[in-house]
């Protein structure tokens, strides 16, 4: 059973259903976020449906590109023999 699940995420033949499932989950999450009951919102953004989706996506993109900028432009990434 475990092997079947793992294969679903690895094998090329499941690429289409995999993608469809993924986008379906995304849509369901956004829809559910509008339906969920927010008993108390500490901050303004807590009361915005879909906020966490936007923030998650933005964080992800920001982290990727800020890190790569630091790595390539600022020079944190070096050849493997740098210390030799």
């Amino acid at each position, binding site marked *: 059973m*475990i*092997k079947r*699940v*793992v*294969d679903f*995420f*690895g094998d090329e033949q499941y690429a289409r259903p995999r993608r469809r499932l*993924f986008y379906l*989950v*995304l849509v369901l*999450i*956004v829809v*559910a*976020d509008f339906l*969920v*009951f*927010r*008993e108390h919102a*500490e*901050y303004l953004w*807590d009361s915005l449906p*879909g*906020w*966490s*989706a*936007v*923030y*998650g*996506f933005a*964080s*992800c*993109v*920001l*982290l*990727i*590109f*800020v*890190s*790569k900028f*630091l*790595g390539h432009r600022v*020079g*944190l*990434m*070096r*050849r*493997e023999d*740098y*210390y030799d």
Partner: protein
Amino acid sequence: MTDFIHPALLFILGALPIPFLSGSIRKAYLLLIPALALLAVLAMEPGSYGEARFIGQEILIAKVDKLSIVFAIVFTIMALIGMVYALHLTDPGQHVAAFVYVGSALGVVFAGDYLTLYLFWEGMAFASAYLVFVQRGGPAIRAGFRYLMVHITGGVVLLGGIISHGLATGSLLFGPIAEGLTNGGMGVGDYLILIGFILNAAVPPLNAWLTDAYPEATVTGAVFMSAFTTKTAVYVLARAFPGTELLVWLGTIMALYGVIYAVLENDCRRLLAYHIVSQVGYMIAGIGIGTEMAVNGSASHAFAHILYKALLFMGAGAVIYVTGRRKLTELGGLYKTMPLTVALYMVGAFAISAFPFFSGFVTKSMVIAAAGADHRALVVLALTMASSGTFLHTGLKLPYFMFFGTDRKLEAREPPRNMLVAMGMAAVLCIAIGVFPQPLYALLPYPVDFEPYTGSHVMESLGLLMFTALGFVLFLWALDPENTISLDTDWFYRKGARAFMWLAERPLARYEQAVSNVSETAALPLLHGAARAGLRLDLAGIDAVVNGIAHSILNGGGRLRRLQTGVVTHYVLAMLVGLIAATVVFVVAWR
């Protein structure tokens, strides 16, 4: 003492017979000791044990309360899991080191005074360094030495702090320092103690020892290392410095620092090591916030973290054990041959990413909620962003490039059964804590008033994580691992040591050469000449005078001796001559 058996003793004394045992007896013994230690911890009653006086100071070997028990429980559970994972090893040295390491960590957890704490603290450093050295090979030996030197330096700073704190307060008992903040703030000693502690917690810029050494340790050693050093540091910080404002910001920076470096990392265990930095950041921030909920969050997150991080290290270790490769650029396509490892690793990945029904969800969110309740919007946003980064790396990037991605056609199989069993044990706990958090909450130092499973919280987490996944899918092209290393603060001492060696080998050695040249060409001949002249003067001048006088006296004495004839008439004659001479002198002088 009858109702208290110190689990540190069980491990440290229990390590002694290991080299003399073999085969299945040794395996059974290796599991028996952690099991006994777990029982000892579960049977413990809060209180003080082993009070004594030493060099005029109060010593308290063990102080048991809820905070120490929660850490001791997870430490002993982790020791058991780590031992199962390492059961196939034939080298007794690693088992002994692991036992001493775990024992020392437990010694720190129960230490009631700073001297006891310090002894076990150093024990941990040496035992864990062995787990790096025993990997052998140049990079491991060098990383081991750096690890040891950093920790010894930290230990010296801590000792300085302890002595200075002891002189200032008159007591070496280990307790909350931050409480003293109201009367005059922290002294120099307290800051030194804080530095010693946050060095072990891998707080930037004192973090590089961790990401430097852990990837170089043995496959099984790294699992132990991921669990103990940083978490004992979290424990002592929670005990001594709750509510220290500085820690809120250090922790928040740490949480992001780790995920940023993780993007750049190519070595799978170094990537995970950067996530230790990030996750410990949550705990440090929680301690800094210092409210009951925040300290509960830090303690429970440490508990969950030890288990899921060990699971992740065990998964990556299994891949290294089977394939002999550790770089993401050389791995890929292993899901077909290692499906169980993939599944178990993913449980750890979901737990660290705080997916609902996994352990991170019920612990990490407590820290974030505590920051929210303490009206720290910036901290909440930063920690939430770090959560996204955590899933991005340990949940998506690492497994994608290690197990899926480009198939490198590596020969692989599932790791030995004991490794899978250990991973299974950790995975079960990760899920159990996530589904039934109440037993863990009951262990926490303060009463828990927090409900993780609210609709809004579950949806918020899912939204954050799944849209992070969307970002990953869309920008996968930007995430390809690169065959590089990343500069961290170890640059300063690695390059600094090189500069020091250059200084010693070039300018200082040249100066030394020049000085010795001058002395050889000019100073030495001069000295030799002077010495020879002195010798001549001595022999020909002074000795001649002394000898001459001596000879004269000797000769004079010889002549005088001839006057002693032994004939009485000669003496009478001499007396008469003397009498006449005296009379003459007297008459002349009288006149």
